[in-house]
């Protein structure tokens, strides 16, 4: 893994978010949430602060409920590994408006940079393909964000991008932690009442 080119996570997420202004976004907990927030807070960004393993299935429920809008899950390798079964669930549904972006540094960054399974043999691209998500691909350049954004906006098939990022820890940028607030502002953005 270490021989691969790596991408700076904040720059990648900022470039991706810049290219998907209309997307509904769900983030996994930890650094991906900080990256998305640092790129500019949006009402249609829902940041998980827990529920590890839940980002992808949450994105699935959202994508099925909002078929006319692009839905993007932005999460880390550890969070995706915990919810790996959900790739089989998503592979069975394959909503055309769902894209999952895994920021893969091969480590559990939030807890002291212990190596994760993606450093130890697991290929999430291969797992996703094995689950029937055919448009699963690695990204190892910053410019790859443009290609991911294009797929998001096209809404023409479930896509799964694994971005090889450097195992760095950029300054923390903390989004709101009040789940009720995050939920209600997200729904309001879609014209839905609170609850």
């Amino acid at each position, binding site marked *: 893994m270490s021989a691969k080119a790596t991408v700076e996570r904040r720059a990648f997420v900022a470039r991706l978010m810049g290219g998907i202004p209309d997307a*509904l976004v*769900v983030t996994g907990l930890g650094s991906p949430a900080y990256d998305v927030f640092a790129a500019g807070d949006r009402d249609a960004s*829902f940041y*998980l*602060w*827990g*529920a*590890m*393993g*839940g*980002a*992808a*299935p*949450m*994105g*699935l*429920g*959202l*994508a*099925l*409920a*909002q078929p006319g809008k692009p839905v993007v899950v932005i999460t880390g390798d550890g969070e995706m590994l915990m*919810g790996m*079964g*959900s790739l*089989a*669930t998503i592979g*069975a*549904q394959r909503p055309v408006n769902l894209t999952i972006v895994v920021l893969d540094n091969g480590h559990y960054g939030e807890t002291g940079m212990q190596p994760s399974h993606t450093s130890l043999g697991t290929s999430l691209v291969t797992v996703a393909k094995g689950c029937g998500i055919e448009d699963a691909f690695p990204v190892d350049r910053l410019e790859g964000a443009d290609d991911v954004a294009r797929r998001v906006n096209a809404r023409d098939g479930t896509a799964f991008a694994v971005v090889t990022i450097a195992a760095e820890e950029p300054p923390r940028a903390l989004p709101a932690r009040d*789940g*009720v607030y*995050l*939920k209600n502002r*997200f*729904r309001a953005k*879609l014209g*839905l009442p609170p*609850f």
Partner: protein
Amino acid sequence: MGGEVAQWQEDLYRVLKAGRIGQVAYVPDAGHAHLIRRVQADPDIRDIVLTTEEEGVALAAGAWLGGQRAVLLMQSSGVGNCVNMFSLLRSCRFPFVALVTMRGEYAEFNPWQGPMGRGSQEAMELMGIAVHRVSEPGAVAEVVSAALDAAFLAGDRVAVLLSQSLLGRKKWERK
């Protein structure tokens, strides 16, 4: 399996239709088999088979973010698989409805079903989910309908436990 379908099983489908449920997520159980077949045949309801029940908790939250009502079907053994994911519901006050078919409590042949079956109600209550139990076939529709109201009109988290006695004895011989 197969054979005659109990009225309460058809009632479940009717109540979910009346409640405008758009997504039904499940890990299969024999007690839900009829409902799952009905949902699969309904173009207005998306059926989503899960690898583990906790996916359904997150999926239901995502559906609600997008303005759609979802219901999770599972058997009691699945409750334990969900415990941490239930925190998502309480942290964000997401509405939630689970229909749980019970094992380990009535004419149970498999002792391995006992521990989680016996702990299911308490596990959900510990995580802030209100639990209603139904043991009378004629009460299924009313209680599930009440659960949908509590969730989607009042924003509450509700589970309905369908007693194993509703399902009768499991036949262990295969022909």
